[in-house]
């Protein structure tokens, strides 16, 4: 696969970023320090380039009905200006991708998918479209996406004079909502969404204007502690926030209910939708379920490590870690893992097989980290 580059690649390189492959893209993994970038998001703000995400515009009189059929949720019920987390399912009920759907207008939706799943999502949407009065346009090559995340993010955006004509003032924009605006005369979409557990915004802009927007955000944000943040920080942040990552917690083999996403599937919606039969059949007997695990000390379980039931040497494997790290915010190891249902209750003690050393860990409810509610 040929590497793809963000429209912001030169800026990242000039900023000294180290790069990593992500879904076929060369994206910044860190600029200076994973931990400093992580802590900046929790205490002030971080700026992420997530232009590798895939965007599809779905429009037409049948757009709502089409999405109800093509996706797991009842998207026709979203109010204009609001967003909804949803899933694209296979017939089996397995997850092809997790995505966020924004309703931009009555007959116009923006579907945002993972970079690595752009092709499967595009194919599935096309295959499910016949019979609906709908047009689907893959906008991934035209749109850049940057995320400003952290408690200072609203103030930073409000201080940028080039952002004008906001449909909804940011103070009034609810979580999981989107509004149109302009940046230096170019159309801008401002969504109050994110993947870090903090208040924050995701900004969609044409690729040609992406570097101007990035620089304006850096200039406005640096005085209040904003730093560019890479995928390493993004991964520890989302893990603390208990958010699943496709390819780790989610896959075509996984039914939503196993990953704690049963509520995302609108079984009560009228009509058929792709995946309903698989969902109604339910997971196979013995299917594992996703849990959080918290341990003490500093040694973390990592993706792929076994979870065992006892430390008496009997070695019964009852699960496998899908994501794990030493939590920078909490100071102790955390992990998400698929485990046998009978050991999935919070409070259960299990053992992480960390390269031969068994480390006790407690099953805990997700998320690991929840930000304090703002008083305003």
């Amino acid at each position, binding site marked *: 696969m040929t590497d793809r580059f963000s429209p912001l690649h030169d800026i990242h390189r000039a900023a000294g970023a180290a790069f990593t492959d992500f879904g076929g893209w060369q994206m910044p993994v860190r600029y200076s*320090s*994973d*931990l400093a970038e*992580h802590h900046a998001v929790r205490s002030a703000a971080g700026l992420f380039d997530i232009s590798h995400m895939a965007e599809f515009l779905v429009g037409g009189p049948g757009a709502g009905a089409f999405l109800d059929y093509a996706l797991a949720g009842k998207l026709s019920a979203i109010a204009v200006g609001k967003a909804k987390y949803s899933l694209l399912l296979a017939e089996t009920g397995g997850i092809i991708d997790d995505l966020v759907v924004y309703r931009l207008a009555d007959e116009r939706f923006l579907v945002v998918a993972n970079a690595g799943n752009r092709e499967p999502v595009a194919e599935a949407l096309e295959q499910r479209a016949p019979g609906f009065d709908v047009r689907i346009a893959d906008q991934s090559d035209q749109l850049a996406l940057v995320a400003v995340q952290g408690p200072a993010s609203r103030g930073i955006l409000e201080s940028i004079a080039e952002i004008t004509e906001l449909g909804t003032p940011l103070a009034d924009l609810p979580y999981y909502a989107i509004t149109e605006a302009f940046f230096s005369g170019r159309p801008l979409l401002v969504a109050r969404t994110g993947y870090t557990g903090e208040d924050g915004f995701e900004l969609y802009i044409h690729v040609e204007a992406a570097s101007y927007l990035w620089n304006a955000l850096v200039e406005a944000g640096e005085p209040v502690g904003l730093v560019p943040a890479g995928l390493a920080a993004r991964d520890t942040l989302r893990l603390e926030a208990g958010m699943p990552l496709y390819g780790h917690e989610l896959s075509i083999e996984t039914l939503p209910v196993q990953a704690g996403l049963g509520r995302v599937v609108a079984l009560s919606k009228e009509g058929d939708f792709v995946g309903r039969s698989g969902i109604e059949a339910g997971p196979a007997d013995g299917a594992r379920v996703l849990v959080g695990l918290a341990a003490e000390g*500093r*040694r973390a379980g990592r993706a792929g490590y076994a979870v065992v039931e006892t430390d008496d040497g009997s070695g019964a494997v009852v699960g496998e870690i899908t994501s794990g790290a*030493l939590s920078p915010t909490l100071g102790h190891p955390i992990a998400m893992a698929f485990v046998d249902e009978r050991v999935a209750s919070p409070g259960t003690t299990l053992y992480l097989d960390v*390269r031969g050393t068994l480390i006790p860990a407690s099953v805990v409810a997700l998320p690991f980290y929840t930000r304090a509610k703002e008083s305003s």
Partner: protein
Amino acid sequence: MTDTNALKYTDEHEWILVDEDPAVAVDAGSVVVGITDYAADKLGDVVFVDLPAVGTAVTAGSVIGEIESTKSVGELFAPVDGTIVEANQAVIDSPELVNSDPFGEGWLLKIAVAELPELLTREQYTAITGE
């Protein structure tokens, strides 16, 4: 400031400080071992270091410890045959020293050397990393 040109290296990204007179080190002395700035940068922020206990006999090329960052786990290889005479407690307490001062305060081990193997010069090492 450590003169990195005076150090020896392995292709597993360890550096080795040998006494000024290599003959002395081979016979009676010990060497100081750490990982290079290149390796530290590749790992990311180091958050946990597992080092062998004093008295452990080690063989060049074998895995003797682990260096964990937020993102990944790196194995530490013994660069020489010998016996561990000291593990750097400062690094065990503050693993971030591996990132902030890899050639100084972030040293990892002192090893009494049985035999000094062929090691790389700075020039040979940087040719490998391309840095």
